[in-house]
């Protein structure tokens, strides 16, 4: 698998550290209530199809990336900087 880092270009997946669903971008307020926090920390969809993952270009530029890929075909359709998504 290769990821096209917006900073570094196309790189082998061994340079990246995988974390999980990009739902981690949407951090609730601290007093949003435990349901919101439970959902943020624990609840994940398991789609057959498009998924948005967080990858860290640890052995590269250090950028956190949101990678859109298809769990059925493994095709990567989009890679953007996480900081652009949360902006």
């Amino acid at each position, binding site marked *: 698998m290769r990821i096209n880092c917006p900073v570094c270009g196309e790189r082998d997946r061994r340079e990246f*550290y995988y974390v999980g669903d990009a739902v981690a971008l949407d951090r609730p307020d601290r007093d949003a209530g435990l349901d919101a926090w439970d959902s*943020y920390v624990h609840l994940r969809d398991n789609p057959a199809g498009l998924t948005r993952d967080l990858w860290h270009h640890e052995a590269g530029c250090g950028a*956190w990336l949101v990678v859109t890929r298809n769990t059925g075909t493994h095709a990567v359709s989009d890679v953007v900087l996480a*900081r652009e998504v949360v*902006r």
Partner: protein
Amino acid sequence: MRLCQVETVPFTFDGVTYRGVVGETLAAALIANGVKMVARSFKYHRPRGVMGSGSEEPNALVTIGRGAAAEPNVRATVQEVYSGLEAFSQNAWPSLKTDVMAVNDLVSPFLGAGFYYKTFMWPKAFWEKVYEPVIRRAAGLGGLSGKADPETYEKAFAFCDVLVIGAGPAGLMAALVAGEAGADVILAEEDSALGGRLLAEVEDIDGLPAMRWVADVEARLQAMPNVRVMTRTAVTGAYDQGTFGAFERVDRAGLKACFWRIVAKRSVLCAGALERGIAFPNNDRPGVMMAGAVRAYANRWDVATGTRVAVFGNTGDVARTARDLTDAGIEVVTLIDAAAGEHVIGTKGRHGLTSITVDRNGVVEQIEVDCLAVTGGWNPTVHLTCHMNGRPVWDDAIASFVPTPGAVPDMVTAGACHGVFHTMGCLLDGAQIAEAVVKTLGLKAKPVVLPDADATPYVITPVWSVAGKGRKWIDYQNDVHVKDIELAARENFRSVEHMKRYTTQGMAPDQGKSSNVVALAVLADVTGRGIPETGTTTFRPPFVPVPIAAMGAGGAGMGFAPQRYTTSHAASAAVGAPMIEAGLWYRPSYFPAEGETNWRQSCDREVNMVREAVGVVDVSTLGKIDIQGPDAAALLDFVYSNTFSTLKVGRARYGLMLREDGHVLDDGTTARLGENHYVMTTTTAASGLVMRHLEFVLQVLRPDLDARVISVTEQWAQFGVAGPKSRELLNGLLDQGVDELPFMGCADVTVGGVRARLFRISFSGEMAFELAVPARFGADLYGALVDRAAALGGGPYGMEALNVLRIEKGFITHAEIHGRVTAFDIGLDRIVSLKKDCVGQAMSRRAGLLGGDRAQLVGLKPVGDVKQLSAGAHLFESDAEPVRVNGQGYITSVGFSPTLGVMLALGFLDRGRARHGEVIRMVDHMRGLDAQVEVCDPVFFDPEGGRVRG
């Protein structure tokens, strides 16, 4: 028998010396030397000879070399001959000719498909101890030596616009067109030479022998700098995003093989086709061969596979084979046209074919032959197109499966694997497909003048299996015959996947390359379904066997993981300190002094040394993160549960980091070097994790913060100096005095003019400092510190002593903050500040993580007869039965305290903080330990902290 005079070199097979031609296959050399029997079959130990001429060979598997370098299951049809080559047959004892396990063949009626499953089910305990070892010895292929592989392997990566797989007429044409269009091309060919089937056939291209055209194209390809030709390189798998695995047999200059990962924007599969057989009685005797292989040996290697040859088949290849053999001077005794209802219904010859029985529409005769060339048609080599879940589709015109277009993204197929079965068609297909491919890359193909070549149409009358008594073998490598498949169907293993697993057809190194289509045709027949409806089993990588040693090249022994050394490593190693691995780091365990015979003596001495004088320890492996910017303080407030914005410049503070789920992530000391400048320390184990975490916070959770972080772990060498004489040691070494530095203070200092950082922090409970210098000065500083310590009655100490010192003081490490504990559990909930938001704060307030029956950090010391404690042991009430339901906690760290003269432990105990003074039971079921222990405060030594303040 050789058809011409050639220069030869010696090689051996089962210890007998023969002569072969350098570069020819071992199979060709054995046939040339009249060796017919080369193997015993997998299950029945039947004599077997060479069947084919390529990597699909099911029979001729041999072991090459001996001892640790022996390589089993090498196909003799692929192995090239060199002077001194040593090859050995497999699965026969004591010898190929008199294999005692051939008795299996006599009891074969009892050894059919499913035999093992049915017979060796009971009693269950017998399977591992009795049945399996016996079966494994009786049925099998070559064995591994059990020793470390002494050969050298490599891994390599390559990138291209167009990967052309296979260098037959289609592949050569495709590579030529793509190369001339300017694309970066890799042409990968499994064989040692380019040409594909043209190497084995007698054909003309443009009126000249086809190999002249091949040589011409090869020269043109080699002349193009944008084309890379890789021979002996089998593409083994198609993976995501145009990534391919490829196995290159090198076998020269000390290098055995290379495993490639090739990333291609486009790929053109020109893998050709594999010939299939016909199932007829006793069709497995040495001398029964594929017709295409018989031609290959005669035409390419100038070797006769027999002196009296019969040809049996259902396509134009019967006449072609007869023509080629006759032209080579080999007697062709008879042709048996399966398309016209003529069949071979039996064979004779114990160790090699002596005669065949032929039935020509009722007229039966026995004919003396020593070789039978068989063809049942050709199967496109669709394998790679199926590696990403694709299934091939049935094509009636060629009675075989062809690839489903688009089954692998950006891959197209051309030539025989595309169902095109004559040379002219392959040339045209290769050119046209490559033209289309380069167009998708924005390139324009140059006009191609197609050469003139053979265009005889391929006509086939499918024949799978013929009538007659006796076993009709389908899968030679796994000893599966027609009746096994019929039995599978009868026992309702009718799905092709079930049939495969029940009979083992299509397993083993050849993965059924020569048998799959025949097997499922037979299954289709007995189940009354069509072949397309029956379908194929799943094709999985690798296309040819790849040694794990090649895939893991460079990863054996110490190559498995990188080694990180501190700047004091050489000095520690020089005095004989054994090293312990901490992540990728190597740290000294202890420093054996003269007369010390075990680690405990050294450790006890080092602990006493720190408590009484002074010790020096390298703490450079701890993560160091430099944090700067106007919002550096706000960042720390957000990632630590406690507050750092209130920390004064020139001071350090212990910090606790939580995960977002409210559990402890890491801890460490962070110092404020300037208004907008901090340096954070992390534990050795979590330094990468914390760095990722800080980046995530800055880039994603708090992009509003103006701060930057960078790891400086390797830039600074840092040493702990601990003990009552630590001040004395540093005074005089530093260019400044250290007396004014308060506990938890930090200062910029110089050591012999070198810029350094001094922290007054302690992990031992003693008056202690940590001194950091740029790493290039680390070795020198360490030497100076150890020298000065020695002069004060101290010296270096290692991880064992460091661990005991911190246990005596109840300081935690990742043994305690192991991922399931909260700040509450370790007694630090008071430093989770609620005045500000921080990572993990919201979830840390959950009722289940605070109070209740949670296990809490405690100290434990033995009070009964058993003085030994052990990490991992479980805790119970003193009179409780030590079973799981009664468990109340566990021990995380233990160490013998020379200071207190007793073993100490840290652990977690249900409601532990309220149970100080209680005597409980510690049981280690693994080590057989059962001790009475007293619960106490985790700080065993100097609870008031007077020593650290000095």
